[in-house]
C-alpha cells in the first residue's frame, strides 16, 4: 500500500535467472537527464519564477512593450482602413480571392499548435521536460489564436455580420450551413481558443495561489486580492491536487484530439475544394505536422531570449533545447516528405491539371516563394542532426527564425499558386499584397508580442508545482524513482 508502483511477481527460480543474466550483461545505469540543474531546491524555484513578475519592471521590458504596442497599431490601422473602405483595399482580385488573410490565419493557428502539443500530447506521453516550457507555450497558443482569429473575422468583408457564422438566429431566420468546411472551422477554432484558455487557466490556479500567498506575506493587500481572486481559494490540499491532477489529465486527453482536429479542419478549407494542389488527402496530417513544426520554432524563438534575460538556464537546460530541436527536426522531415509525396502523387495520379499545379509551384511565377519554403522548411531543420548546432543557442534561434519564415511561405504557396493559375489560362493573374495587407499582418506580430510581454510581466511563466514535482527531492521514497523512473541519484531533500 505504501508503495504504489506495481512490481512483477517473479518465482524464486525466475528471479535467480534474472540475477544471473543481469550479472552477465552488466547493464549500465543510464542516468536520466536532470530537468532542473544546479542542485536547486523547491524554494529556489518559487523565488526564481515568482521573482520575475514581482520585481521592478525592467527597462528593456518597457522598450520592448512600447515597440510591440506601436507595432500592434499597424493592425488597428489596416483593419480600420479595411472596414471603412471595403475588402478591395486588399490585393485580392480574380482569380486570387484568398490572399494574405487566409495565409496569416493558417500561419498563426499553426503557431499555436506547439503549445497544445507540449501541454497535452507530451503530458500523455509523460515527457517530463515539458514542464518548464508548457505555461509559456500555452500562453503563446492563446495569443496566436487571438491573432489568427482576426483574419477570418475581417475577411468576411462586412465584419458587423460576422456573427452570422455562429448558430444564432439572424433577421432572415437563415441558419449557418453545416456542410461547409468554413463553418466547421468556426467551431474548431472557437473551441480550440476556449479550451486552450481553460487548460491554461486551470494550470495557473496553484501558481496564482503562490503569488497570492507571497503578496499576502509581503503585506501587498491589493496584489494579494487580485491574484487571490483568480486563485479561487486554492490551498494546496492533497484533496485538491487529486482532483486537479485528474482534471489536468482529462484536459490533456481532450486537447489531444482537439489539436489534431483543428488543423485537420483548417486543411479541409483547402482539401474539400476541387482545385488542383488543394484537393489532396495528404493535407490533414501534413498540416498538423507543419503546425507543430512552426509552433516549436516559435516556442524556441520566444524562450531562448527569455532564458538569457532572466537567467533561466537551470530550468530550460540544454536537454530541453535538444528535445525541442529534435521535434523540429522530426516534424520538418515530415513536412519535407509531404512536399515530395505531393509531387509524386501529382505525377502518379496522371491528372494533367494536378501535374501542372505542382510544376507551376516549383517553376512558375511563384517559384521564388516555393524555394524559400523548401530551403527554410526542409533544409534548415536538417542542421539539427548535429549536436554542435543544437548546442549553439544563437544558431538555434536563427534556424527557428527560418522555420517561422518558411512556414508562412508554405501557406502562401499553397493558397496563392493554386488560385493564380487555375483552370482557365485567360483569367490567370499575379497576386501581390497591398500596403494594407502588409500593415495588418506585421501588426499582428506587435499584438502577439504585446500580449506575451504582459503575460511575462504579470503571471508566473512556468508552472512551479509541476517543476517541483519533477525534481529528485519531490520523491516520496527518497530515491527519485517515484516520479522520474530510474537513474536519478538520491539527493538530499529540498530544504535549505
Amino acid at each position, binding site marked *: 500500500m*505504501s508503495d*504504489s508502483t506495481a512490481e512483477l511477481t517473479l518465482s524464486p527460480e525466475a528471479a535467480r535467472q534474472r540475477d544471473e543474466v543481469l550479472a552477465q550483461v552488466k547493464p549500465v545505469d543510464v542516468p536520466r537527464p536532470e530537468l532542473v540543474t544546479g542542485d536547486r531546491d*523547491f524554494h529556489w524555484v518559487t523565488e526564481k519564477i515568482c521573482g520575475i513578475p514581482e520585481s521592478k519592471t525592467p527597462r528593456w521590458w518597457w522598450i520592448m512593450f512600447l515597440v510591440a504596442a506601436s507595432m500592434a497599431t499597424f493592425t488597428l490601422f489596416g483593419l480600420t482602413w479595411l472596414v471603412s473602405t471595403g475588402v478591395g483595399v486588399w490585393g485580392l482580385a480574380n482569380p486570387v480571392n484568398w490572399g494574405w488573410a487566409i495565409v496569416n490565419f493558417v500561419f498563426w493557428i499553426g503557431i499555436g499548435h506547439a503549445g497544445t502539443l507540449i501541454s497535452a500530447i507530451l503530458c500523455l506521453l509523460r515527457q517530463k521536460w515539458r514542464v518548464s516550457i508548457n505555461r509559456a507555450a500555452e500562453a503563446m497558443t492563446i495569443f496566436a489564436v487571438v491573432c489568427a482569429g482576426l483574419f477570418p473575422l475581417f475577411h468576411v468583408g462586412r465584419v458587423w455580420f460576422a456573427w452570422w457564422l455562429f448558430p444564432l438566429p439572424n433577421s432572415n431566420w437563415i441558419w449557418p*450551413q453545416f456542410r461547409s468546411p468554413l463553418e466547421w472551422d468556426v467551431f474548431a477554432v472557437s473551441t480550440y481558443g476556449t479550451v486552450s484558455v481553460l487548460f491554461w487557466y486551470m494550470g495557473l490556479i496553484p501558481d496564482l495561489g503562490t503569488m497570492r500567498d507571497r503578496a499576502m506575506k509581503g503585506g501587498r493587500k491589493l496584489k494579494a486580492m487580485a491574484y487571490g481572486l483568480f486563485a479561487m481559494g486554492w490551498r494546496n*490540499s492533497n484533496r485538491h491536487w487529486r482532483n486537479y491532477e485528474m482534471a489536468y489529465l482529462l484536459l490533456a486527453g481532450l*486537447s489531444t484530439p482537439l489539436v489534431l*482536429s483543428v488543423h485537420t479542419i483548417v486543411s479541409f478549407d483547402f482539401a474539400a475544394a476541387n482545385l488542383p494542389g488543394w484537393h489532396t488527402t495528404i493535407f490533414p496530417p501534413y498540416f498538423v505536422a507543419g503546425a507543430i513544426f512552426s509552433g516549436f520554432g516559435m516556442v524556441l524563438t520566444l524562450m531562448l531570449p527569455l532564458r538569457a534575460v532572466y537567467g533561466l538556464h537551470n530550468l530550460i537546460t540544454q536537454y530541453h533545447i535538444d528535445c525541442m530541436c529534435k521535434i523540429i527536426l522530426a516534424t520538418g522531415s515530415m513536412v519535407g516528405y509531404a512536399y515530395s509525396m505531393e509531387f509524386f502523387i501529382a505525377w502518379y495520379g496522371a491528372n494533367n491539371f494536378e501535374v501542372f499545379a505542382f510544376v507551376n509551384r516549383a517553376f512558375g511565377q511563384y517559384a521564388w516563394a516555393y524555394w524559400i519554403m523548401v530551403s527554410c522548411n526542409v533544409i534548415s531543420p536538417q542542421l539539427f542532426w548535429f549536436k554542435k548546432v543544437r548546442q549553439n543557442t544563437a544558431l538555434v534561434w536563427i534556424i527557428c527564425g527560418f522555420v517561422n519564415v518558411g512556414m508562412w511561405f508554405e501557406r502562401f504557396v499553397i493558397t496563392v499558386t493554386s488560385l493564380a493559375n487555375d483552370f482557365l489560362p485567360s483569367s490567370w493573374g499575379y497576386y501581390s499584397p497591398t500596403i494594407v495587407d502588409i500593415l495588418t499582418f506585421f501588426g499582428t506580430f506587435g499584438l502577439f508580442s504585446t500580449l506575451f510581454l504582459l503575460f511575462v510581466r504579470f503571471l508566473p511563466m512556468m508552472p512551479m508545482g509541476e517543476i*517541483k514535482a519533477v525534481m529528485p527531492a519531490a520523491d516520496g521514497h527518497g530515491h527519485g524513482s517515484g516520479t522520474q523512473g530510474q537513474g536519478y541519484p538520491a539527493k538530499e531533500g529540498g530544504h535549505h
Partner: protein
Amino acid sequence: MSAKSTYALLATFSKTPEFFQATAKVRDAGFKKWDVFTPFPVHGLDDQMGVGRSKVPIFTLCGGVFGFCLGTLITWYMNGFDYPLIVGGKPFWSPVFPFPVMYELTILNAAFGTLLGMFTMNLLPRHNHPLFEYEDFLKSSDDTFFIVIEKADPQFDLDKTKAFLTEIGAEEVHVVEA
C-alpha cells in the same frame, strides 16, 4: 467577533520522504478529519492518505455527452428541420457532414465539465479558510509540507495528537486557532 478557539493541529515537514511516510501513519491511526498540504502534487500520496479515485471524470463524461447531443440537435434542427437547405445535393441532415461540429462541441463541453468538476469536487471557489489565519501556512505553496488534523476529528485530543504528530516525525507542531 467570537473568541478564537482551537481549529486544528498543524505539523510541518520539510523533506518529502519523511512527510510521505508520516501521512501513511496518520491514515493508519484512523483519523478522519485531516488533510495534507503540499507545494506540488506528490506522486503516490493519494494511496498514502487512503483517498480513492477522483470523481472529476463523471463531470467530463456528462459534459461530453451533453455536447455531442447539442451538436447533433442543432445541426439537425437548423439544417434539416427549421430551414431545410439543399446544398451540393447532400441530404438535409446526416450524421456525417456535421460531424466536425458535433465533435468540437463534445470536446468543448467536456472541457467545461472537467473544469466545473474540479471546482465542484474541491469545493472551490472559497473566500477564506481557517488555515490561512496561520501565517506560516502560506509556505505550503512554496517548499513546506503540512499535515493538519482538525479538532472536529473524533479522535482529536490536543496533547495526545500533538505527541503523535511529533512521534511520526513532524519538525514543528502548531495549534491553529480560528
